[in-house]
Structure formats: C-alpha cells, structure tokens
C-alpha cells in the first residue's frame, strides 16, 4: 500500500470534483496512470475506493454517479454501457448498493482479489468513522451542545428520508397493482399478523413500550396482540 502511494499521490489533487470535470480528464504525470486504464493495479483500485469513500456524501445515488464520473470518464476503466449493466445487476441484489458497485467494479477489473480490495477500500473508512462517532456520541452525547446538534439535525434527516421515499416511490410505484401492493405492505407493517396464534405466549419484552415504533400514534389504539413485526427473532 505504501509503495503505491507515490503513483497516486498526484491524483489526490484531482479530487476537487466536479469542477475539474468540465475541463476534461487531467493528465497526471507518470507512466503508471497511462497503463492504469484497462488493467488497473490492485493498489490503485483499493486506493481509489478508499479515497472516494471519505468524500462520498449524499446517499448511494450520489456516490454511484461519482463512481461513474471517475471510472468511465476519467480513468476509462469501463465503458458507459458496461457501467450501466453492472448497475443493473447490483440493483437486483440485496445489500448496500454502492458497496456492491465498488466490489463489482474491482471484480470486473482485477478478479476476486480486486473485488475484495475495492470493497474493503470503500468500507473501511465508514467503519473507522462510525466507531469514532459512536464513541463520541456515547461519551459526550448527553452534553447540551451535542444534544442540541441532534435536536437540530434530526428534523433535517427526517426531511431527507421523506424526500428519498418520495423519489423512490415515484420511480417504483408505476401502476395500480403496485400501488395496491404498497398499501397492503404499509398496513401489514403497522398491523403485523400474529403468526403464532393466540395460544402461544409472546416473548416477554425487556422494556415494555407504551408506543410502538412501527406505527404512528393515531393508529396505536388499534393494537393487535402480536410479537415483533417482520422479525425472524420471535418466530418459533
């Protein structure tokens, strides 16, 4: 990893995306970058995704389009069609999409090891970050300053989630059958069926909650006797 750093050191400056993009790919001195295009080295794949991950703000769509800019236009690792095909496949698999896209690109360019390194490069920064943030939160979260931050930012996150749901909803609920499916899913999430029947005793909850997470308050009073929703944990 260390010995590869010099070859990519120059391209660190290129990270001032996306303004440099209009000016076309910037040539970075050094023969390794030239050879990079069809068969990038394992180290350059790892380092690319490692750096991308620190800059990846704004949801999977945002970083997938960053990957497209970099891998298709700038580094010429993939053609536009190849990238679109890969994206189609990752959309069919369960799991975090952007991570899958990183693994997929690495796998296509440098085999199994390439896939593993691309994925690790993309994931390790997130892991470090969430460890640090969790430590900070559980240590200082009760302080009024930190608490106030969440008091202010939580509404913004609700707004972001609502917006994501609206956008996804518009692109996925395309006909009346799917709209019905949407309503049925929503209702069965709020009123989960009691698969085990009334004869079996529900598992005792450690903390009895007066309000259910999975249902808005105006529906709380119609509670059905039921265990945890959508969970294999409570199934027998």
């Amino acid at each position, binding site marked *: 990893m260390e010995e590869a750093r010099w070859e990519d050191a120059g391209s660190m400056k290129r990270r001032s995306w996306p303004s440099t993009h209009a000016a076309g790919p910037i040539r970075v001195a050094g023969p390794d970058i030239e050879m990079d295009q069809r068969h990038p080295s394992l180290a350059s794949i790892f380092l690319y995704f490692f750096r991308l*991950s620190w800059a*990846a*703000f704004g*949801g999977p769509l945002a970083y997938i389009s960053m990957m497209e800019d970099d891998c298709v236009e700038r580094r010429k690792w993939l053609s536009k069609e190849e990238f679109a095909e890969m994206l189609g496949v*990752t959309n*069919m*698999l*369960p799991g*975090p999409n952007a*991570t899958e896209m990183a*693994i997929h690109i690495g796998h296509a360019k440098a085999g199994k090891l390439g*896939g*593993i390194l691309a*994925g690790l490069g*993309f*994931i390790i*920064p*997130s*892991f470090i*970050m*969430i*460890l640090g943030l*969790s430590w900070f*939160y559980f240590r200082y979260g009760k302080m009024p300053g930190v608490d*106030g*931050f*969440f008091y*202010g*930012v*939580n*509404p*913004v*996150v*609700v*707004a972001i*989630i609502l*917006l*994501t*749901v609206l956008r*996804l909803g518009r692109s996925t*609920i395309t006909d009346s059958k*799917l709209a019905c*499916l*949407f*309503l049925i899913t*929503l209702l069965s*999430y709020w009123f989960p069926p009691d698969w085990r029947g009334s004869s079996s005793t529900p598992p005792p909850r*450690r*903390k009895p*909650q007066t*309000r*259910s*997470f*999975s249902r*808005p*308050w105006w529906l709380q009073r119609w509670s059905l006797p039921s265990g945890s929703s*959508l*969970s294999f*944990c*409570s199934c027998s």
Partner: protein
Amino acid sequence: MVITIRKLPLILQLFLEFLKASCLMFGTGLVIIPLTGPDVVEFFGWMSYKEFFDGVTLGQISPGPVMKTAGFVGYKVAGIPGATAAFWAVFFPPFLTIILLAPFFRRMRSDPWLKGFLKGVKVGAVAIILGTGASMAQTAFPDLLTVAIGAAAFLATLKPKVNMSVVVVTAGVLGTMAKLL
C-alpha cells in the same frame, strides 16, 4: 423446536440481526430503520428510540453508506467487538453475493420472474420506510422549532442544487444555539 435468539451470545445476536437487515435490503440503505429499529428498541431493548434515531442521523450525515448505523447499535451493546460484529454483518454479504454470483449475472438480468419479484420488493421497501416515518417524526419533532427546521430543510432539498452539508451544519448550529441559550 424453538430457537430463542436471546439465549445466544450477545455478539451473535447482533450479527444475526444485522445479517437479516443486509439480506433483506433492497433499494436503499434506509431500509435499516424499519428492518432493525423495532427489533433493536422493542424486542431486544438495546437502546431507546431517541438513541436509535440519533444513530441513523450519524450514519446519514457522515460520508459512506447509511447502513453503517449498524456499527453504532453494536457499539452501544457490546463496545468495539459489538460494533465490529454488527457492521460486518451488514457489509460482508455483498462480497459473497458479487463474487459467487458473478457467473450468473447475465442470466439474472433477463429473468422475468426475478424482475417481477424486484418490482414488488422495491415497492415494499418504500412502504416500510414510510411506515416508520411517522414514528420517527415523533422523536424528531418535539416542538415547533424542529418542525420549522424540518420544513425548511425539505423545501431546500427539493431544489437539486442545494448543498446538503450546508443545510446540516446550519440546522446543527441552530439546534445547539436553541439548547444552549
């Protein structure tokens, strides 16, 4: 035969819980909220709604996938080993699925059954996120100021050119000031 997950070691509980979330995740990482929230808070009783939602906020405003919130829950439950178990439960399956399924990708893309299945699953994902939206709003909007911040942020994000980090920092500063003053 009854398998009780509560009898398992804590680390394994975390791992299985988030493995489930990873395997059922289609569409967007936000599915982690409806898939694990009720279990984490009500079934296991690991943390409160407030803490869980603060964790989602941390996952959302820091770079990288939202699913890293799993690490936050794991950290609360069992420190660094817990965070490691929960985080890698989410991010390990993609390695397997991509590398093992790679030879079948071409066939998968043209399979009509799989396409139909995914159409339905994605609608379901939207539905369950919206399903928790109402309850999340209860934790996030304790008073009028937060409602105002939320509404302003929503209107701001409707415009595609607005930089989200500016909105987040502004809201954070506003919130801190409101609490301190």
